[in-house]
């Protein structure tokens, strides 16, 4: 069916088959899709256990549920036949096929969703999908990037919301999570808050992963210290009905008010409150749809750079430990919950105070004072709509500047800016300059230019190395019969990658080439290996050109101030 035959426009399915937090992040894409296609009918496929979230999502006219729990229960029970599960999936697929979608966007990056997306039978797909030969494709460099950056990482990776937007080609400067308040939630919150003028601070202690939160004793200490430092505030302890024990334990013998609420009610509670203190939870993402101030505590496997509070002005605290962030798939490997221990009650209470007073210099002082234990980060969404979390009180260094230049050049490359006749180096460069000035507000133009000139030399050196490596690949083509020569080359290239991966300025390049080296199958024909390496080194060469333009643009920008 073509678009014109639809009454009202295109029909689009968005697939989000992970957890509640991921669904909430996906809603930003739903909003952008609707804004770009006001007549489109947008449907969403989510895991059945989270169907209650649907009441909060605007822009969606139909919600399909994948009954993961039911299916897995069926599969795990010997009394049931596997065929029952097969037929149940088939039923869902038939319902999806009947919709005859014009476009399917899969925001879930796993094989299961890839096969389900294939089964929907729409030719226009974005995100993971398997083709008729059983090979997966992603349809965009941004989704490829997502696939390459799944491991826990401290790298300056992009936020999922931004990756989803660029991958689905719906990125505009105005992208955010926007949810709709229900009447039941509104009534709940109004009944809860008796004093309309009170300052309300909400703490949300529960998470689905033990290592992503503090113990109840520490939460109680935090609440007590916050209550002491904010004597006029009302303290609310928020939880789901299943978390009653936690709430009871924290509130016992105190004036704290326990709030057990549904998602819809929580959203309204947050709408009418002033500050939320939470771990990496779906409640944090709900809060980004309100005006509440957010203090995020990033513990355990929480990857703040991928899933941090998608809003400007939130503060994130992360314990300084080498193991953070850890893998979702394993329990904490340390003797004590070290990343949690490093984020003290005192730091949290003082940060709350500084945030409520909107005292930027106090936040920077706290970051400096607690620098050995924790990192204090501020979130920012720039005028292009891109999210970032930068450290406050960080030492002015080439490493830190290099990390952000590498990130910007990575975006320009993923957006194929260098292939366009008129690139967006200018506006990206300006955004980068603003960001760097926010991170290091006290540096003089001379200091900036001096560091940037030094970095320019490093990029020129790196470009020379890449050109040499490309030249040697040509030699290999001539001596194709010599497997030893190729092996030696790969070994040297691997060493080179390891070296540059340690350098923030070239970190993502090194990682990209290493990934290709890791993927070279044993016994692959030398020609195939050489072809892959040539492509990757060619890419790295392009990236150096982008990075040089950015560095030179920054130098000009800082000198123009003079």
């Amino acid at each position: 069916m073509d678009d014109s035959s639809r009454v009202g426009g295109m029909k689009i399915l968005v697939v989000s088959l992970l957890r509640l937090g991921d669904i909430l992040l996906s809603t930003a894409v739903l909003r952008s899709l609707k804004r770009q296609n006001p007549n489109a009918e947008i449907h969403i496929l989510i895991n059945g256990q989270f169907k209650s979230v649907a009441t909060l999502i605007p822009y969606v006219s139909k919600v399909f549920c994948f009954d993961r729990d039911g299916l897995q229960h069926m599969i795990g029970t010997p009394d049931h036949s596997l065929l029952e599960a097969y037929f149940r999936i088939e039923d869902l697929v038939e319902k999806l096929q009947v919709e005859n979608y014009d476009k399917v966007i899969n925001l879930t990056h796993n094989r299961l969703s890839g096969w389900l997306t294939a089964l929907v039978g729409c030719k226009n797909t974005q995100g993971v999908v398997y083709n008729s030969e059983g090979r997966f494709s992603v349809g965009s460099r941004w989704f490829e990037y997502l696939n390459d950056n799944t491991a826990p990482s401290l790298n300056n990776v992009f936020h999922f919301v931004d990756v989803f937007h660029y991958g689905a080609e719906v990125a505009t400067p105005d992208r955010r999570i926007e949810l709709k308040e229900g009447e039941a939630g509104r009534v709940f919150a109004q009944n809860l808050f008796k004093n309309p003028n009170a300052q309300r601070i909400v703490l949300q202690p529960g998470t689905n992963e033990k290592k992503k939160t503090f113990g109840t004793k520490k939460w109680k200490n935090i609440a007590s210290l916050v209550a002491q430092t904010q004597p006029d505030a009302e303290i609310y302890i928020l939880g789901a009905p299943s978390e009653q024990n936690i709430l009871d334990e924290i509130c016992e013998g105190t004036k704290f008010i326990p709030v057990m609420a549904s998602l819809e009610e929580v959203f309204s509670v947050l709408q009418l409150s002033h500050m939320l203190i939470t771990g990496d939870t779906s409640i944090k993402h709900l809060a980004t749809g309100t005006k509440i101030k957010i203090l995020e505590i990033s513990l355990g496997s929480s990857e703040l750079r991928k899933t941090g509070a998608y809003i400007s002005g939130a503060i994130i605290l992360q314990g300084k430990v080498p193991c953070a962030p850890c893998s979702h798939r394993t329990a904490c490997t340390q003797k004590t919950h070290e990343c949690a221990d490093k984020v003290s009650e005192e730091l949290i209470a003082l940060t709350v105070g500084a945030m409520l007073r909107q005292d930027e210099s106090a936040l920077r002082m706290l970051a400096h004072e607690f620098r050995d234990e924790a990192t204090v980060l501020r979130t920012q969404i720039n005028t292009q709509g891109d999210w970032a979390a930068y450290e406050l009180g960080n030492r002015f260094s080439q490493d830190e500047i290099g990390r952000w230049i590498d990130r910007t050049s990575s975006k320009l490359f993923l957006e194929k800016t260098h292939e366009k006749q008129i690139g967006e180096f200018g506006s990206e460069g300006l955004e980068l300059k603003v960001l760097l000035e926010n991170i290091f507000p006290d540096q003089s133009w001379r200091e900036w230019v001096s560091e940037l000139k030094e970095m320019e030399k490093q990029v020129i050196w790196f470009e020379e190395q890449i050109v040499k490596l490309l030249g040697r690949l040509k030699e290999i083509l001539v001596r194709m019969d010599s497997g030893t020569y190729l092996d030696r080359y790969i070994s040297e290239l691997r060493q080179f990658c390891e070296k540059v991966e340690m350098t923030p300025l070239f970190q993502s390049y090194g990682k990209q080439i290493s990934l290709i080296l890791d993927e070279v199958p044993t016994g692959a024909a030398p020609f195939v290996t050489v072809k892959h390496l040539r492509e990757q080194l060619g890419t790295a060469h392009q990236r150096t050109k982008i990075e040089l333009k950015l560095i030179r643009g920054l130098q000009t920008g800082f000198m123009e101030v003079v």
Partner: protein
Amino acid sequence: MSSENSDLRQHLQTVLSELDKLSQQIRDSHDFSESAELVLCLRELVQEQVESQYCENFSSTTHAAG
């Protein structure tokens, strides 16, 4: 580990191994018809369920598709 959990793991491993055989047959035959895709989908679901027996939080991870 309780014996109930152990039984479930064993059962799931058996189911997964059957589905793996079927998946391999599909790949060898290059027959990616709708029913084949459903089998592969089911296989991934079981694989996730097996993984969930060994880790805390399987469905939350964004893992690589290939």
